[in-house]
């Protein structure tokens, strides 16, 4: 459960103060599946970063399961990222040279969790890449890479999956497959928040949140 109240975020660009989020209130229950859309520069990424504990609110509050993140230390935010959150990026960021298997295992070394091949295989099956476990990223298509990245986001069994334009670098076919996958994961109880520019894809989610100029558009 995510509760956002009057969230504001400023950035300093030199002496200039950029007001990226101008008071956002949102309630996202456990198991929700929402998309965030809106024109460029309206604060979608900023919002996702704050929900994902990568950055802190300038004003207002964000609580995850009742715990306010604005009061947390750097260390506590890191622990939340390790345990509760899975991230998917537009550019996949798989590590070249490491196998699909090792890429999926990457978060476990940071979370200090001993996981093995047998823990990864079910995840790879979920994302439809079981037979690719020992391939290298450069042997995969874009869509396949993003599905590996999704498996990586899931390895530590997070409660929330955050994806910032995960289909931004993919063709329509692959994009739809990724959203299918999100829907499937959500059906298993994973709270899923996806930023996208594509209204058609956004319409596949349970709820669409439109941002405009740092605010939620109603």
């Amino acid at each position, binding site marked *: 459960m995510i509760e956002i109240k009057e969230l504001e975020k400023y950035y300093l660009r030199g002496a200039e103060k950029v007001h990226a989020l101008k008071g956002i209130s949102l309630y996202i229950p456990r198991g929700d599946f929402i998309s965030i859309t809106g024109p460029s520069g309206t604060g979608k990424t900023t919002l996702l970063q704050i929900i994902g504990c990568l950055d802190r609110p300038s004003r207002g509050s964000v609580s995850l399961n009742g715990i306010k993140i604005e009061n947390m230390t750097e260390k506590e935010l890191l622990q939340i*990222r390790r345990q509760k959150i899975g991230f998917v990026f537009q550019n996949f960021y798989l590590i070249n*040279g490491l196998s699909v298997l090792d890429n999926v*295992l990457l978060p476990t070394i*940071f979370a200090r969790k001993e996981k093995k091949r047998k823990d990864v295989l079910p995840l790879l099956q979920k994302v439809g890449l079981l037979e690719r476990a020992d391939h290298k990223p450069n042997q995969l298509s874009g869509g396949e890479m993003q599905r590996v990245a999704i498996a990586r986001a899931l390895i530590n069994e997070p409660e929330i999956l955050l994806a910032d334009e995960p289909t931004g670098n993919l063709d329509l076919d692959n994009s739809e497959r990724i959203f299918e996958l999100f829907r499937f994961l959500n059906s298993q109880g994973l709270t899923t928040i996806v930023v996208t520019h594509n209204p058609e894809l956004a319409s596949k989610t349970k709820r669409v949140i439109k941002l405009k100029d740092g605010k939620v558009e109603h």
Partner: protein
Amino acid sequence: MKFLKLATNNILRHKIRSFLALFGVSISIALTFSILSFNKGFEKNLAKELEGTGLHFMIVSSGCPHEVASLVLHSSVLPKYLDITLIEKLKQYPNLKLISPMLVSQLPNHQKNRIDIIYALDISHLPQLKPFLKIKGTLPSNEKEILIGYEIANHDKLTIGDIVKYGPNQKDFKVSGIIEKTGGQEDAHVYMFLSALQEILNKPQGISAIGIKLSTTEMLEKTIEQISREIPGIQIVTMGQVLNSILNLANSAKILSLSIAIIAITISFLGVMNLILMAIFERTQEIGMMRAIGASKWDIFKIIFNETLLITTGGGLIGILITTIASTTIEHFLRIFMPYMPSGKILVFDYNIAFFCILSSMIIGAMSGLFPAWKATKISPIEAIKG
């Protein structure tokens, strides 16, 4: 998946670049390792060689430069002669067990168009003075016979029984024996009877130096003092002084070689640092991603630090391996720079030095990794999302 695997993978992603940095470290460590081993071996072999003579001190004519006098065992030609009658005076001292006159000179070898170093002494003393010599054939048994060093024999294709001519009258000398390779000055020496060289030089009474062995060492200082007081015109050089003089002479070469090693290490250090900084710059977003998915600053530090340590320690190990495998070649090369060489194999594998070199390479790694790793921890997790 382990941190080490991650670091290894990062190194392997840019094979050529990493190899160059690693190679730089290997070379600098190989250099340091061989120089340190060499210096240690040099001192050890020199001390062993001097000890091997069993001599306690040398007597030379007063006014001989100290350094040159020290090298009489290493075939330096002294500008002033002692008189052979000195031997009789020295025999008065009961504590002197061995009194060994020697005469060193350079003689033209007209057949080969070359100057040979001639070392003349009481041949019966030779096995005592240079106990490490292994001889094929026999020691010269009379004034017409000579013993030659390995290189001379090899170069001139001389075998036992061959004739070499020396002196204004081109007297015949028969090779009675050949010294097996020592790696030292002996390889280029010709040994003959004292009287034979005195005759050639037309100095029937002349000698360069006298080596003295005492029956008991307790009397060393007293004896030296007494002899210096009672016999004018001579100068006494103890073996300790000989050792120090030679080490001093070798010192500038030592300093030069160590400076080269330090420069090489510095360059390799900068090379590694540059490699890692470049890698971090290229991987900014990837590092941001790792921070976003749960890596702490310390985790990032460890990954980068491991990378540098792997490269430098690997380089260090390879450097030591290279030196060990190529020690003969390297020794030959270093001998060109060192002015006075004791005999025997000088570049021997020394665990302490090897350990020190590995440690140095790890310190290079730590030093060159510290700044880049620290810089990497400053990368924000937001970098990954910005894309």
